């Protein structure tokens, strides 16, 4: 365990929505340049956990969070932490693609712009690099000024990925990024995740067992707010240590 390169780790993380105890004592380490899949039935807390990793949960009223999440050894729930800086380092991709109603170029350039990049040449460079990384450049390089709402759903989602990596984060959180896409677009996203993990640490929530098995190195199984089991993806899917995990991954419930 000790020689692993840990980017993010949660320690005794508890999340309450009002009186509801949504996440119970979650302790987990997320390795650098690994893809970690979070699986579990709906309402098990996996999305809640994902959103606690860049404090998107802060936006919800009546939420209480206890415990620690450490990014490179620094607790992100420490009172001195700037949420804005944190989110620059921990980006997020949402379930439903949500490009801004602006041009494709403006979408990708948004992040760098708010970080103070003004020079056109530098922006062009970042946009091209990000779109290339998101495997979208070849498809839309001639339509950069088209509205982002006009491209297909799969392209939109990859555009959102390009937009997220344009601010050069260390971690990418993905909340069921392919659940609204057709199989071909899904395959492209999965391929993309595979290449992106060389540069980023990726955490992905998915309802799709096969997807978890295909893209992730580590799989964590959540059930009723608890982290039941975490381990190497191959082991989780072939020889899980817990009965509940086995029942879930073999499709007996969920």
């Amino acid at each position, binding site marked *: 365990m000790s020689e692993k390169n840990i980017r993010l780790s949660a320690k005794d993380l508890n999340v309450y929505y009002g009186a509801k105890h949504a996440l119970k004592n979650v302790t987990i380490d997320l390795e650098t340049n690994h893809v970690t899949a979070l699986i579990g039935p709906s309402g098990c807390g996996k999305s809640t956990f994902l959103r606690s990793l860049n404090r*998107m949960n802060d936006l919800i009223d009546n939420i209480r969070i206890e415990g620690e999440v450490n990014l490179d050894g620094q607790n992100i729930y420490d009172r001195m932490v700037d949420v804005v*800086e944190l*989110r620059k380092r921990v980006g997020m991709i*949402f379930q439903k693609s949500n490009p801004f109603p*602006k041009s494709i170029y403006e979408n990708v350039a*948004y*992040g760098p712009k*708010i970080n103070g990049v003004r020079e056109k040449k530098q922006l062009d460079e970042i946009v091209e690099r990000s779109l290339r990384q998101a495997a979208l450049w070849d498809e839309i390089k001639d339509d950069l000024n088209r509205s982002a709402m006009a491209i297909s759903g799969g392209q*939109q989602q990859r555009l959102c990925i390009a*937009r997220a990596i344009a601010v050069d984060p260390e971690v990418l959180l993905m909340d069921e990024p392919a659940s609204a896409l057709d199989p071909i677009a899904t395959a492209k996203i999965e391929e993309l995740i595979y290449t992106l993990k060389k540069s980023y640490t990726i955490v992905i929530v998915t309802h799709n067992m096969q997807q978890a098995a295909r893209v992730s190195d580590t799989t964590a199984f959540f059930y009723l707010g608890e982290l039941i089991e975490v381990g190497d993806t191959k082991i989780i899917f072939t020889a899980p240590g817990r009965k509940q995990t086995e029942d879930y991954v073999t499709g007996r419930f969920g």
Partner: protein
Amino acid sequence: MKTISDKPALSLRKKFRWSEFLSEKIITLVSFLSFAFIILIFVFVFREALPIFSFSDKPSAVQTTEVQETYGDDSPSATTTTGTGSRENAAGGDRSPTLNNFAGKEWQPISLHPKYGLLPLFWGSMKVSLIAVLIASPLAILAALFTASFAPRWAKEILKPSIELLAGFPSVVIGFFALIVLASWSQNFFGYQYRLNAFVGGAALSIAVIPIIYTIAEDALTTVPKAYTEASLAMGATKWQTALLVVLPAATPGVFAAVLLGVGRAFGETMIVLMATGNAPFMSLNPFEPIRTMSATIGAEMAEVVFGETHYSVLFLIGALLFIFTFALNAVAEFYIRQKLMKRFGGG
């Protein structure tokens, strides 16, 4: 088998429901009534203004009798206060209908040689509306942005209704406040010559315009999908950057529509400008000079005018112009911009 085939033959027969039929018809009728009212008002205002356009060709005596015929019999509503006496007056006076001077720069309707220059009135309306909207828009839009993106829920619950309540504020009260209080403050502060002027009127008018712009802009800002806000925040944008660079641009068509409707309201508003602008038909760029608006002119002169005379028709012409202007403004705001907004968010 038998029991099943016995029942449905009867129970499925079409039934006539009186209450259903009636309520449906009544609702249809009522909704078309309000539509009909608008059309009728429009037709009436135009018909009253119409005599002017045939004036210049014909001798005035013929014209006035024509006017008399029209109004004596089938004018259904409106100014019956001006009785027969004044109509005879109309036949006698009003010898010089100066219709070619609508484009003139002087408004002197009561005179031996009346001048009906509409330009200063139009200019007055434009000027005071512009001042009102220039003051109201930033305040209203920023307030809308605050309630839509920043305010905690309790603040929103207090702010939104109280600003909207301002829309129901009697304009005469606002006018009175401007006339008595605002005008003096403003004069003491800026030290200009005329106590009542376009600026005071515009500032008072902005109180009436703010709630309109605020309500519609706030609606437009809250319909911006939360997903945009989340995406922006998740990239490390601050709340301000998100509100200013994502939420506001996404709601631009709606906010623009709000401003247009605000212009419409300002343009048509009568009582406030009648009380606070000084009512002198000056044409100047100086905001601290008095102006006279189209609406205030109608409001001030309609009760005094000789029924059926040129002046009377000109006032209706002004009314028709006001109608067309605000109608066009509202139509643009409603159909063009709202639809654009819908398209923007509906497509994704």
